[in-house]
């Protein structure tokens, strides 16, 4: 992964979006021709609780600069309870990543319903700006030894 930071640099952001709420919200944003940063790659998942914490580690490893997990508001889960597990899981994951040196802005979670197209757009704009300000992510990224001499001595 390139770590050069120049004015043309755009972050790579993965957004895991639950099929029933946020993905629909993103769809609505598109239908309404709302403009939001194109550096966000949306990955549709059946439920926010489908997102394994390991996906986030792997995303950083493979070159993502930020990860966003979005799902239905608590109480609105299509599967009734999925997002309650998401909530616990990612509150802990965010703290564990912070403890390992990852800025909590680089991994965020948000509840966005199917009708909240504007919230989707605003969230994506905000997250994208925050990550742009942080710069490229090199933490957990692949190829450390290739780019840095020595490595494990």
């Amino acid at each position: 992964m390139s770590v050069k930071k120049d004015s043309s640099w755009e972050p790579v952001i993965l957004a895991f979006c639950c099929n029933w709420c946020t993905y629909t919200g993103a769809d609505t944003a598109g239908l309404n021709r709302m403009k939001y940063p194109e550096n966000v790659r949306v990955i549709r998942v059946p439920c926010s609780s489908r997102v394994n914490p390991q996906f986030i580690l792997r995303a950083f490893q493979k070159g993502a600069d930020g990860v966003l997990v979005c799902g239905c508001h608590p109480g609105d889960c299509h599967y009734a309870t999925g997002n309650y597990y998401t909530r616990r899981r990612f509150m802990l994951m965010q703290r564990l990543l912070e403890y390992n040196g990852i800025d909590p802005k680089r991994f965020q979670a948000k509840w966005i319903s199917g009708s909240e197209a504007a919230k989707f757009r605003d969230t994506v704009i905000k997250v994208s700006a925050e990550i742009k300000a942080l710069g490229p992510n090199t933490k957990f990224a692949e190829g450390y030894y290739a780019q840095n001499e020595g490595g494990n001595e």
Partner: protein
Amino acid sequence: MGNLTKEQIQDRIREEAKKALATGEVSCVVGWTKTRFPDKTKPFFAYTDAECDLLVWNEYCINSTAKYALDDRYPEQKIGLITRGCDSRALNRMLKDNQLKRENLYIIGVVCDGKENPVCDGCQHKNPLTYDVLIGEPVEETINEKRFTEVEAFEKLSADEKYEYWAKQYDKCIHCYACRNACPACNCVECYADQYRVGWQGKAADREQNQVYGLTRVFHVGDRCIECGECERVCPMHLPIMRQTKKMLKDINDLFGNYECGLPDDSKPVLGEYKLEDPDEFM
């Protein structure tokens, strides 16, 4: 401690082990025996009376006996286990995770007097919590005020300092999986780390794969860790693994209330349940 001397406890262990074998229901008793080093013992499986006389009890009985119960998940006879407080919590862990059946175990509990092991200083449960027979009088339990002090101190470092620290630790890791093999919470029949073709994690023992392994394991055991310290003790590269697992436990304590694993209650792991009134940071 208190009522029985080490020799008396050792005699009682041998006596109870023989009694257990004599019932015909127990195939072997897992404990410790001496090695050629005066300051080391090794895990030992006693199948006969003569072997029971080789069981020892001293400050060097350090290895956890509990996880050996997993080596035979469907035993024809009961497995006997010499069990300290930490071993009993490990057994509770595996019982709660439905990896063992209580009726397959014969638990000889021993009130522990502390071992030559750093985690013993912070031990909150020297009395076995689950047992069939108990050797020794239960002692008063202590609260470890310093349970999270190391984590709290580490949290104060800057993001880059934290990252550098852990990255260098994971540089050392040789991907041997000893930490997983020793851990009572790592009781999966098939570990994700062995599923190379699924692609969860690369095979190379380099920084990035080790980071993924280390953090994934921490997260997997995070809400079930019994704080026995086995992972850290067995790590040949001396990674401070409990500094990560305790971080998870500390956050769980802060967010979801006082939490300790391996107790003989019917509580579920924190990530396996939820409450409607949990704090919400994602609105």
